[in-house]
């Protein structure tokens, strides 16, 4: 998969935090070829790049209620296979299997982490910004987790809606 268009310069946007209502609103379906979506894609990547430890960022996290997100788990120690940096529009889960529980955090919920069960084998379908080409991604392990977390953001869900039990929420101890 190609890197997002280099003709558009991404801007670094402020990341909103819960309880901002934009995080709990399902994002709008977008036209991936629209110039503002191409710009948004570049902005998400630029903002992810300057955020230490950030492996993904969704449009609602920069205050835009839209189904667009970027992911890049390539630098993360938990990563096995990955697809580098990419942006998906209107992504949806095609198939998901092999649930695994792990602790995850979120830039929009900076003080807490939670134990969340996610599929470790995942097929996702979405569209590339710019061309609008349909892409299908087969992801596993940590990249699969990141994708599900970002797709949740685009549906107005946080990991707080997914934790496995009443004692599955924790004060953040390490800053990655």
């Amino acid at each position: 998969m190609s890197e997002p268009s280099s003709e558009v310069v991404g801007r670094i946007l402020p990341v909103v935090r819960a309880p901002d209502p934009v995080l709990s609103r399902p994002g709008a379906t977008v036209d991936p070829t629209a110039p503002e979506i191409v710009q948004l894609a570049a902005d998400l990547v630029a903002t992810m790049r300057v955020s230490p430890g950030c492996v993904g960022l969704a449009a609602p996290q920069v205050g835009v209620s839209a189904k667009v997100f970027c992911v890049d788990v390539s630098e993360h120690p938990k990563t096995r296979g990955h697809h580098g940096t990419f942006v998906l529009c209107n992504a949806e889960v095609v198939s998901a299997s092999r649930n695994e529980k792990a602790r995850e955090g979120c830039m929009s919920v900076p003080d807490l982490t939670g134990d969340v069960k996610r599929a470790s084998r995942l097929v996702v379908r979405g569209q590339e910004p710019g061309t609008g080409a349909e892409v299908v991604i087969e992801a596993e392990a940590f990249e699969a987790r990141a994708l599900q977390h970002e797709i949740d953001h685009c549906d107005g869900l946080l990991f707080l809606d997914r934790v496995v039990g009443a004692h599955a929420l924790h004060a953040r101890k390490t800053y990655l």
Partner: protein
Amino acid sequence: MTFLAITVLGHDRPGIIAETTGVLAQLGLNIEDSTMTLLRGHFAMMLITGGSADATTVEESLGALTADGSLSVSVREVPAEQVVARGTAYLLSVHGGDRPGIVSTVIAEVAKVGGNITDLTTRLAGELYVLLAEVDLPPAADPAALESALGEVAGGLGVEVSLRALESDDL
């Protein structure tokens, strides 16, 4: 066999659990169930012990913990309880901006349908308030009706709410 409910609360420092459980072991008490966490930085532990020592003896033996006034300890005898699973388990999740009355308003809806809360955590992180509760719903309760009632009060409070069946994978 005497069952004792022991609570230890106060200023956190390393060694509280070691000292507490050391005393209990010396008294021949068995720790049946226990839980410990930090609540806004305060040490909070509760235990149920089984053994032959009585409450007064145990409280006196734990006296060193309370000597400098930074911790309070209480010990009282409790009857044996039957642990019975009642109905189906759900996880209630609520999050949103902090404001008074979130817990009481939301939990009142659970109580109305006879739901029993078996585990509860709330966290305040900056502006964000989070409540997680594991709820046993009696067979007569309608989870969909409860979820819509919860949605209504959540709307009034400006918070998000969800109610999901708690799954457990047997491996």
